């Protein structure tokens, strides 16, 4: 059932993209739009087919950077959210710092990451982690605090330790919020990896987009964007599937 639902989700998403492509194809042909302004979707598709190997390789690199950044950023966010949910003073101390991270314009500081972490994968992963941090922090924090106080009290009367309350009540209560944060953070991680590649990289979809933009080569530019979108859609579908599997008992699993 879950796999079928995932396939339906993917089919709907790609159907919507195909519908937009048809409109654009008609538009570009009817008005003879130059390819350096808006390439016809058929030209983009042809380019994606001819450069499929390149897009797959570069997409794989961006995906790996985004995945590493996602794991790092959301992992740190969850740990900090746990600490904040456990202690009001720590919440008051850490939350302003988290907002500072959130409000920092990533594009402005991205070049600094190269100075701090070198030319390799590390700065891209760090940017992806930074950009995914706040949504997961807020969702985790709210989720962990959302546990029913009467249920907490009930478990405590049964002699449950704080760790047991956390494991058997707070985390399950937080799961819908965690999945919500994961959905947001996954896409942000991809954007973060692309921003990192944009500011200085020799591989990845961000690099492809950067060079294509400089050369006004919009067929490969849109091809790279579509690959990025496909990765995002697939990742979201996977999270959705995991959510339905783990939260089969929760109303949200029915709604998504």
């Amino acid at each position, binding site marked *: 059932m879950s796999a079928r639902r995932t396939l339906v989700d993917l089919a709907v998403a790609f159907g919507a993209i195909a519908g937009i492509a048809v409109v654009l194809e008609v538009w570009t042909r009817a008005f003879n739009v130059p390819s*350096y302004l808006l390439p016809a979707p058929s030209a983009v598709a042809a380019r994606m087919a001819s450069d499929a190997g390149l897009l797959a390789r570069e997409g794989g690199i961006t995906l790996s950077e985004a995945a590493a950044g996602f794991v790092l950023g959301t992992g740190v966010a969850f740990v900090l959210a746990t600490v904040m949910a456990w202690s009001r003073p720590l919440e008051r101390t850490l939350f302003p710092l988290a907002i500072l991270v959130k409000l920092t314009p990533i594009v402005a500081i991205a070049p600094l990451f*190269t*100075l701090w972490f070198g030319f390799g994968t590390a700065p891209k992963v760090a940017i992806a982690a930074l950009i995914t941090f706040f949504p997961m922090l807020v969702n985790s924090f709210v989720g962990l605090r959302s546990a029913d106080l009467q249920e907490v009290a009930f478990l405590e009367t049964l002699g449950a330790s704080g760790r047991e309350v956390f494991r058997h009540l707070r985390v399950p209560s937080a799961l819908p919020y965690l999945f919500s944060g994961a959905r947001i953070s996954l896409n942000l991680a991809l954007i973060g990896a692309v921003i990192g590649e944009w500011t200085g990289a*020799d591989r990845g979809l961000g690099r492809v987009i950067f060079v294509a*933009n*400089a050369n*006004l*080569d919009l067929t490969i530019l849109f091809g790279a964007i579509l690959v990025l979108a496909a990765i995002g859609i697939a990742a979201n579908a996977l999270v959705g599937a995991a959510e339905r599997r783990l939260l089969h008992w929760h109303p949200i699993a029915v709604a998504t």
Partner: protein
Amino acid sequence: MRLLAVLAAVFLAACSAPASAPSPTPAPSEKVTFMGGFKPQADLPFVAVYVAQEKGYFRDQSLDVEIQHATSGENVQLLATNRVQFSTGSPGDVMKRVATAGVPLVSIAQIGQRDEQSFAVRADSPIRTLKDWEGRIVGYKSTVSADYLALLQIGGVDRSKVKEVVVGFDPRVLADGRVDVYPVFTANEPDTLARLGVPVRLFDPTSLGVPGLGLSFVTNKQMVNTKPDVVTRFLRAALRGLADAIADRDAAIDVVMKYATGEDRAHQRYMMDTEIDAAQNDLTRTNGIGAMDRARYVGLRDFLLQYGGITRTVDVDAVFTDRFVKDLYKDGQLVWR
């Protein structure tokens, strides 16, 4: 004695000012947009336009000029669709855009007569010759440039012994020691690095025989073909503004700072002075600032083809024209009418 001084001053002013011709021809006012290819700063073509606007030279030429600046290269598409009528770009970039995407751009006045970029090493670096690049880390901004490949060949450098890394547009990687050689925009980044406490020495491609060119005024084919009088009037006003800027650099920087708000005045002055030097050579001393030499465009096209800067040839006569600049000067003096 005082009368002599006044006469001498009048004489000198007459010599430096553009030659005047009588009977100004009234032309209908035309609204056009100039979009600088980068943020507001003292790039020399920008300075020319700022000063021309400030002194009313465009108005005198019956032009209503709106000044804009690009943030990420959008000036090319806007120029191609005639939503912007004038912009800036190097002939190498123009050729690349024409070769790869068929964008209808035309260079109409060559302001920078030297390559825009150089390769910087720290002043205290043991790297003295191109051959010394072997075994070193050399940065490139986005793609390996034709300039760089040409320099390797000129210096007899074994490329396999050079570690190339993409470094983006932040010169701090040289200051930080992450690269040994860093490609700089000659007009500003050496000053930026010096301000970071890292004076640099430059490997200048132009001095080493690479046929690069700097910024030019660029328009589109539609303007060249349908409104050549507007192109002429725009260039006449802008080049007069440029002549004024060269004659009085302090006043020009005053004007620049009205546009480049928040920028450092001394840094802007460095940029302008560097670009003024790069705008003058034997060709311009004879034919005036902005002069164009077809042989240099052919040389640049062939060079780009040889080193992969462009992958297909372009018709040089379609990407540049010197007809406007030639009409504006007489005996090397700008004719104002």
